[in-house]
């Protein structure tokens, strides 16, 4: 394909990337013209770096290979990958099969140089693309610098590095050309997203009832409404939460069906944009559209529409969702509550809170409370304990609080309690605190901490009829 044709195809395929496409096409469209030995394409996520380079190289039919660095687990893996896929690419572009026996091993960077040198000797230009090189796991520390100097030994190799940030510091070579893929501004985002508007009517309205509503008319309506809708989504949500193309598109797609629901139901016309906006304003006020969720089906967006008047309804629904799907056994819950208290109460207050034989308990507690709030407020702001990280505690303290919490003191010292602690540990509700010897399960005096928050603990307490807040130092809220 001629360079101009490539340029035109790419421009139409990737709108709003004129200057980057132009630069890249100049470098990589002709076989006989030299390409820069090293080029860095950088830009934030979803700015079209990888896809433009991939399409360009495919269109220009240069021999090339693209390696996704995030698929490579170690540095060695990356090196092996480079050689293997270069062999595959040359096999595909050339006519004869290359004898692979000489390339069996690529242990380190120098053998990579040797292998590539041997491989590309007497051949034409070859482009090697390393996609996401800054995300490579366990990369050899000298890799970047070495890649920058490959040109000195292999003249016909041209490397493109794709990263999210410019690599000027890491390369140790001056005058490396950089192509910056700037984040799309608002106008470009709207242009790109409006290329493929989704349909308002998943099933077209019956032809008998609306004979005039042709598919052309429907497409026109789709484009009209989608354009206005996406502008509204951008201004209200995506501008503040995720300005990149992918999250913008995701948010818009998530809200779209809920947005056009009244049109499909027939209560609004397709061009009643402003009335529709007012009717569906809750979509743009809530956070549901921008949260990432695995389970898409139980989206509360559609349901929220029916109960517009009360904003409390979705909240309670959410709280119900948060409750335990599966109930824990009785003593397990107490163990968890005890662990929470052990993590968030300082151990010196245990006597005040858990000794059963003192009737001064209430008095002491109130004194403590008043002193802590009244006195410290003036000096420095105190952060509520339950917002801090849990502090570690020894296992015996957990068991002691556990027994203090139970009404029935005659719980046998059975191994079942330890089984439960082990189970909770493998569920990460209880976590072994770090430090030396934390890997040893029999380490005496090992420390633990809890792996859940206040809401969960309160829920647990209420399910067994225990108000956890009463036992918490400083109270809650």
């Amino acid at each position, binding site marked *: 394909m001629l360079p101009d044709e490539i340029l035109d195809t790419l421009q139409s395929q990737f709108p709003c990337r004129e200057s980057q496409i132009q630069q890249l096409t100049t470098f990589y469209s002709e076989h006989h013209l030299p390409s820069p030995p090293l080029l860095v394409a950088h830009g934030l996520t979803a700015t079209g770096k990888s896809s433009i380079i991939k399409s360009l190289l495919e269109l220009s039919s240069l021999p090339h290979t693209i390696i*996704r660095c*995030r*698929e490579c*687990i*170690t540095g*060695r*893996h990356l090196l*092996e*990958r480079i*050689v*293997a896929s270069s*062999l595959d690419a040359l096999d595909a572009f050339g006519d004869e099969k290359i004898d*692979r*026996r000489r*390339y*069996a*091993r*690529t242990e380190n960077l120098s053998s990579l140089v040797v292998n590539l040198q041997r491989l590309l000797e007497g051949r034409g230009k070859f482009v090697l693309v390393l996609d996401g090189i800054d995300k490579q*796991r366990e990369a050899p520390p000298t890799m970047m610098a070495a890649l920058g100097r490959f040109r000195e030994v292999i003249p016909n190799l041209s490397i493109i590095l794709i990263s999210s940030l410019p690599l000027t510091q890491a390369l140790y070579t001056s005058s490396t050309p950089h192509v910056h893929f700037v984040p799309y501004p608002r106008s470009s985002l709207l242009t790109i997203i409006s290329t493929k508007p989704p349909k308002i009517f998943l099933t077209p309205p019956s032809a008998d009832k609306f004979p005039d509503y042709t598919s052309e008319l429907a497409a026109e309506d789709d484009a009209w409404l989608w354009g206005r809708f996406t502008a509204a989504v951008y201004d209200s949500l995506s501008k503040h939460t995720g300005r990149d193309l*992918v*999250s913008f598109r*995701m948010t818009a797609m998530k809200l779209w069906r809920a947005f056009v629901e009244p049109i499909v139901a027939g209560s609004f016309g397709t061009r009643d944009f402003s009335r529709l906006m007012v009717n569906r304003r809750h979509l743009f006020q809530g956070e549901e559209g921008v949260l*990432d*969720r*695995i*389970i*898409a*089906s*139980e989206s509360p967006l559609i349901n929220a529409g029916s109960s517009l008047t009360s904003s409390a309804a979705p909240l309670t629904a959410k709280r119900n969702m*948060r409750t*335990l*799907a*599966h*109930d*824990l*056994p*009785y*003593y*397990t819950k107490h163990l968890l509550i005890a662990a929470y208290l052990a993590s968030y109460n300082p151990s010196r207050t245990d006597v005040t809170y858990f000794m059963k034989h003192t009737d001064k308990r209430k008095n002491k507690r109130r004194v403590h409370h008043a002193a802590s709030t009244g006195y410290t407020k003036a000096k420095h702001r105190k952060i509520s304990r339950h917002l801090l990280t849990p502090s570690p505690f*020894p296992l*015996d303290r957990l*068991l*002691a609080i556990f*027994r203090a919490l139970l009404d029935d003191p005659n719980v*046998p*010292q*059975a*191994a*079942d*309690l330890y*089984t*439960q602690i082990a*189970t909770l540990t*493998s*569920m*990460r*509700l209880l976590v072994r605190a770090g430090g030396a010897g934390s890997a040893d399960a*029999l380490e*005496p*005096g090992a420390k633990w901490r809890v792996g859940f928050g206040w809401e969960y603990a309160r829920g647990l307490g209420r399910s067994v009829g225990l108000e956890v807040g009463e036992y918490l130092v400083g109270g809650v809220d």
Partner: protein
Amino acid sequence: MEYEKCYIYAPPEPSSEERPLKRPRTSKSHSQPQLPERLSAYRRIWTQQEKRIQQTLEDADSVTQEKIVRFIGASTPSEKEPQTPIPTGLVVAGPSIASHGSFFSRLGQSIKSETNSAYTVLTSGECPNLKTLLKCLVKKITSRTDDGDEDGDLHHSGVSARKGPRLLDFDLGHVQQWQNKNKTQHIVIAIQDTEAFDTAVLVELVDIIYSWLDRLPFVLLFGIATSAENFEDRMSGRSLRYLDGQKFDVTQSDVIIEKLFGATLASTDVPLRIGPTLSHRLLDRQKDHVQNVQDFIDGLKYAYMSHFYANCPSIFLDEGLLFNDVSSESFEALRNLPSFRRWIETMLENGNASDVRILLESDQSLYEKIVEHVGLGQAAMASLSQAASLFHVVRENLQLSPPVRLSTIWTRAAAGDIIGSPLFRETMLSVKKTSSDRLVPLLLFLKELDVEGSPIDWDRFYQNLDKLVQEHAGSGPLRSQDDVRNDSVRTTVIAQKVLLSKHKATLSAQDKAYSDLVARLFDELDKYFTSAFIDPRALFLSEVLMYDLKSPHTEVFQPKPRFAIERALASPHDYLGCSCCDRSQGEGEAILAATQPATAILYQLFLESGVLINASDLWSAFEAIIGEDNQEDESRTSALIQRALAELRYLGLVKPSRKNTDHVGKIMWKGL
């Protein structure tokens, strides 16, 4: 010893003829008549139970499993759009971690049989980091092939090793080669215990799988013990964007336990029953400590095993047992049973002395009686179980609150205290008060259920009721005369006193007919329940028909390791049983005596002290107790305390303190 840094302690040799003073008690094993026969009887009976258990478990899971299989079958990654997220199933399997393994293996079987998929399970134990995880994954997927293919595989890899660059063993390229050959539709990766995985590893796994999704059709299943939201909170936003899926709730384990209980213990045709005490313990343990189906089954199996192992007359449970198969010892054992004695005594009171003599002397006639009574007892137990389930059905259909489970009803019935209990009275009263709109579905249900040998003719009741309802033209349902809504309260004020008086509203003719019907039903039900809910422990041969001993069961399933160690150290006499440190001779309190083991003495001193213990104080107290007369030779006492202290440290009771070098820190307290 001041000048010696260390020395070898040579303990004084005890004279060889003398037996050691303290040694554990041992006893000879008893003879076990007819053990092989009882073993075979156990095996036969347990096999039936096991079949029922398997059936129940499979039924319980089948709905969820079908859903998951359908989800996997439906999730075809489209080739055109490269940016589709990974199809993901969040399997919320509940906190009974031990049953996850069997759930996922059953799931794997049904996935493999119903879809063209490869299936692998990853557990946290085998995947400490990303590299090992991928290695494991590659190994598990690619070795799934048949034997014929494996030869080809070996050959192929051999060639590639000689010819060119070899794939590293954690490269998913292996899976791609395998996929090119096998062309499966999905590769399902089930992560069994998601919570136990390192979050960073999971995030990276999702990242890599997403990257490979355009070449390999992955489907992820996450087994979750807590909740799906908890899992979402742990993952990063980017990984969540790569995942898209559904949540599947596995049947809660208490529901499964309830079903298992109904199928195994409260079922009508079970030869051997578990008594109320033990079944109460089994259920309580599930409620309070562990939720684990496997554990319940194990408990049941152990009870069966102990019954047949330790109870000689259990041989009579074997069906088709002939007189010649039974040894005379078994008859002798049977004659010693309390229930046999009770039976004999009632016979004597009735004046059947000759029968009693025959039974006491002739094994043959005893055998005949036993066979007869085993059958009778089993029938009584069956009708008790049936009545319990009927009672449960009645309560459930009348929607009485609080809902009482079948297991609770059965346990109380087996303990013989359901008749006359508030629960029974309340239920029967509400039967009396039921209006027709609730009674119709109940009778319909009972008619459909059609319990075998039920003494009540449900069909007739239903037809009568149906006729009444058909004739009834009014808006509301028919009400019986005991219904509260037929009462009205009148208030009269006489001399500043309020009098409340109840008045029955006048009943219509139809309501009267309905009241008659309800009264008949009530009478029949009452009669039936009173006849069926007997006290099974009063039955002759109840020791054979029912196993209700808690002793070995508690020790096996709920051992108390910490308590045992603490007790052994705090009062060694309990275990040693020697005369020298018998506690009863003292004033009741534990007395420290030199005859006790050194570790025990030190432990009791340790109990009296605070968090930090001065080693020198410990030493002087210890020395005062050991109390050797000659102060010259400290070496024995010193050796004893050093060994005792080392043992305490080994048990994890003390640790050296960093702050004060001459102190030890106390890290365990007694009784926790």
